[in-house]
């Protein structure tokens, strides 16, 4: 191969007007044809179309192309498409390279055609320079364990577990609470069909309990996850129930238990004992001891009333927490959401006025199995209210509370609740105070109309405050009817705050354990919002239910089935191919210092001290390349992101006008995706930046930065995921360390260290990326030619060039 003549074909895509609208594609193609090794350069309207792909395939055959460069959208979008086309024409897919001239060029420089075209040329030049050095490789195949882990036993987790188990895979369902069922088990009815929530959920719950393929781990938490797609090793902490499976759920123990506390399941509106079952339909039905409440919490059997009452002798206070190790191939995250705590909005008086309740408390009050036996009563005097108000958007869509999103379910939930009241007590006057009613789903509008027909009154305009009447405990709502432009002051017996949903407080733990990303709202982020809506960016992990965003039961179930299907595909195949981006070791150069083994986040590299050599397990490698960046003797490099390839890209950028350019190294998962997001959102920023993609910011070796400065670059940006969010567990900590060392070096040599910037930006933080480029543009403009020269001198001495 190495002796073979390199023949590169370049395709500059118009993408309709998406690129051609601000980049002169013909000029770029013409420029490309002048580059070394390029034998063919074309511009084409839609390169990703079938015809476009056919064109590439024909050209490969006809012009004997052995490298292909497509300048179009982000490789995150269409790299797989073009790689496949190359393969179909007999070209190894690793001999394909992409230049991102849409998300990172035409869309972010909409109003400067000249600069955008020049930048596009640079990006193509970089891609061609890298392409010339590409080497063929083959994907690595990894077996997939045919078992799945589902985290969270709400309706989404239940559905996903059942679907997978029915397909024939072994499923571990881990639930933190004593019973599965989640939020849905606590609701009275469901919209828009008004089905009884627990009646439709309970059969599914018992299916889970009975299913031979499902191992249910309740009262348990995932505490550690290791491994990679197809091969996860998960540690689950099973907390003791202190009641054995022999329990017949007769409840005699509970009757004699002297200790009581508010029942969490009933939102604290009813009491439970220290030994209890959270609700009648709980699965498993085995009782549980709340050890914080039990008199025996200090390890001495002080009280044995329950033990005596249990005919089956199922109570066992000697149970200990137990860590279970599981091996699974796929993981479904269905951890759900929390409800907003309205006591942080003092103007609504929740927590102070007894008759201000949340929608969740309402569900328990209207539920026939709930603490009031289905009588909607005012907590202050246990009377049925005659005038009821609902307040919408409590906690949602607000900058103040930091929850800027719409919680999706509250509008319909309120409509459903209002109809429930009307059904039982038709004389009740019901007012709904809202800003927008979002009845967008199937059957939703009908339900909304039905509520109106039943006489529920909808008033546009949220109350500014609630004041309680000291004598009657009634509530005054003060606000503006914004349609009539008239103030209102109305008295109600009871107010229901329609509280929004928020990310679970422990999302951070799951995020860290599974190396996931989250959006600005705090919910987990999917791999692609349209085309991979249930996949996590991390391979082998999928989302279901409210963990990904607030959604209703139907959407949760739909997503759960989708996630199960996605996980099923992986397990049905039984193997998965991993990109050949693993490290390559030059044994001659290796001094067996072991630094690479120290930085590897996956323990894929070990130092064999006896044989004085480094051993690499390719299947365990995540592909971050931080080992290659760490190697002091240039013995390690990364497939498809070799030192030569990256340096060729740097050199291409810095060939002309380096002193006006910013060389940016962006990690594929966060910063590069963030820059793409800036493009998709059409955020405009200065055209001086040239982005070089690496899988992880940990791949950025100091010598790359030095090289850029040695060749006169005005500024360098190293950008990666937020610390703790790294796609490769912790590889970006090494980035920080390396950049800090470079800063020190710059300072010691009298260089302005602001020329090297480090940015943490998530895939959703396009704005953060754009504003960083603005900030750096100012630095670029302030740099004097002398400073550029000084840096050149300092860093070429250091061996950068």
């Amino acid at each position: 191969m190495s002796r073979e003549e390199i023949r590169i074909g370049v395709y500059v895509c118009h993408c309709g007007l998406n690129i051609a609208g601000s980049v002169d594609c013909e000029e770029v193609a013409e420029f490309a044809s002048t580059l070394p090794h390029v034998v063919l350069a074309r511009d084409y309207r839609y390169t990703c179309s079938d015809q476009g792909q056919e064109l590439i395939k024909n050209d490969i055959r006809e012009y004997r192309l052995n490298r292909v460069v497509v300048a179009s959208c982000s490789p995150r979008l269409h790299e797989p498409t073009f790689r496949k086309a190359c393969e179909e024409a007999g070209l190894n897919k690793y001999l394909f390279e992409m230049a991102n001239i849409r998300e990172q060029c035409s869309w972010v420089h909409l109003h400067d055609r000249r600069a955008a075209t020049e930048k596009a040329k640079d990006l193509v030049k970089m891609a061609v320079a890298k392409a010339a050095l590409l080497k063929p490789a083959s994907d690595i195949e990894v077996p997939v364990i045919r078992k799945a882990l589902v985290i969270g036993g709400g309706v989404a987790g239940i559905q996903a577990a059942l679907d997978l188990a029915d397909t024939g895979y072994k499923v571990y369902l881990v639930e933190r609470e004593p019973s599965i069922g989640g939020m849905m088990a606590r609701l009275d009815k469901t919209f828009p069909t008004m089905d009884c929530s627990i009646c439709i959920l309970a059969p599914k719950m018992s299916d889970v309990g009975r299913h031979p393929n499902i191992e249910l781990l309740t009262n348990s938490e995932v505490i550690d996850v290791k491994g990679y797609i197809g091969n996860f090793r998960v540690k689950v902490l099973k907390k003791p129930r202190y009641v054995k499976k022999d329990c017949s759920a007769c409840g005699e123990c509970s009757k004699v238990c002297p200790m009581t506390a508010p029942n969490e399941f009933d939102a604290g509106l009813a009491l439970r004992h220290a030994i209890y079952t959270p609700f009648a339909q709980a699965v498993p039905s085995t009782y549980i001891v709340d050890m914080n409440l039990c008199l025996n919490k200090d390890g001495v059997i002080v009280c044995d009333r329950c033990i005596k009452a249990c005919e089956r002798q199922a109570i066992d206070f000697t149970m200990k927490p137990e860590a279970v190790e599981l091996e699974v191939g796929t993981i479904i995250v269905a951890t759900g959401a929390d409800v907003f705590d309205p006591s942080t909005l003092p103007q609504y008086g929740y927590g102070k006025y007894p008759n201000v309740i949340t929608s969740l408390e309402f569900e328990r009050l209207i539920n026939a199995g709930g603490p009031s036996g289905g009588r909607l009563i005012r907590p202050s005097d246990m009377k049925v209210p005659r005038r009821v108000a609902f307040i919408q958007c409590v906690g949602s869509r607000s900058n103040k509370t930091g929850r800027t999103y719409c919680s999706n379910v509250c509008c319909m939930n309120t409509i459903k609740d209002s109809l429930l009241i009307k059904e039982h007590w038709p004389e009740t006057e019901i007012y709904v105070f809202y800003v927008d009613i979002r009845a967008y789903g199937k059957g939703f509008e009908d339900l909304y109309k039905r509520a109106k027909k039943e006489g529920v009154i909808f008033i546009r305009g949220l109350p500014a405050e609630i004041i309680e009447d000291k004598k009657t405990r009634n509530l005054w709502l003060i606000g503006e009817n914004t349609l009539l432009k008239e103030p209102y002051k109305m008295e109600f017996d009871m107010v229901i705050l329609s509280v929004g949903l928020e990310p679970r407080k422990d999302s951070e733990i799951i995020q860290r354990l599974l190396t996931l990303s989250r959006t600005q709202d705090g919910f987990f982020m999917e791999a692609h919002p349209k085309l991979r809506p249930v996949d996590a960016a991390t391979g082998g992990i999928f989302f279901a239910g409210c963990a990904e965003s607030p959604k209703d039961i139907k959407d949760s179930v739909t997503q759960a089935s989708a996630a199960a299907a996605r996980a099923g595909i992986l397990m049905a195949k039984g193997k998965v191919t991993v990109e050949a981006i693993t490290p390559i070791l030059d044994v001659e150069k290796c001094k067996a210092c072991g630094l690479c083994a120290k930085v590897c986040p996956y323990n894929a590299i070990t130092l064999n001290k006896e044989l004085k050599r480094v051993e690499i397990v390719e299947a365990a490698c995540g592909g971050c390349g931080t080992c290659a960046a760490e190697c002091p003797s240039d013995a390690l490099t990364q497939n498809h992101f070799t030192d030569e390839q990256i340096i060729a890209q740097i050199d291409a950028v810095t060939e002309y006008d380096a002193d006006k350019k910013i060389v940016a190294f962006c990690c594929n998962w966060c910063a590069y995706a963030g820059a793409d997001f800036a493009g998709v959102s059409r955020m405009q920023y200065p055209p001086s930046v040239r982005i070089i993609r690496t899988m992880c910011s940990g791949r950025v070796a100091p010598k790359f930065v030095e090289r850029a400065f040695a060749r006169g670059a005005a500024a360098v940006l190293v950008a990666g995921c937020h610390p703790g969010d790294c796609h490769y567990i912790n590889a970006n900590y090494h980035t920080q360390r390396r950049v800090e060392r470079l800063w020190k070096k710059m300072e010691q040599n009298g260089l302005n260290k602001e020329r090297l910037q480090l940015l943490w930006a998530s895939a959703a933080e396009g704005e953060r990326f754009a504003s960083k480029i603005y900030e750096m543009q100012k630095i670029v403009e302030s740099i004097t030619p002398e400073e550029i020269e000084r840096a050149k001198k300092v860093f070429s001495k250091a061996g950068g060039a």
Partner: protein
Amino acid sequence: MPERLWRTPLDVEKISRPKAEIYILKDQCKGCGFCIHYCPKKVLEESDEINARGVHPPRVVDEKNCVLCSFCTAVCPDFAIFVKEKQCKDGC
């Protein structure tokens, strides 16, 4: 379920908790204090009086707090304390 639980449960008066009657055989007590120390609800304390054996027997601070676990009976070396459930009608 992390919501804040702040309300008085609606059934707080309905759920029956056993009511205790605590019997202390003062003169049988040798003042070891086990019952006072081990009571999980801290229902007992040392009294000022001196019994036939010349020690301070325990005294009930608040009978309502007793949950009838009878641990005091179990640990008493002198069988000097026992608890009976108060039989009451009409859910007293």
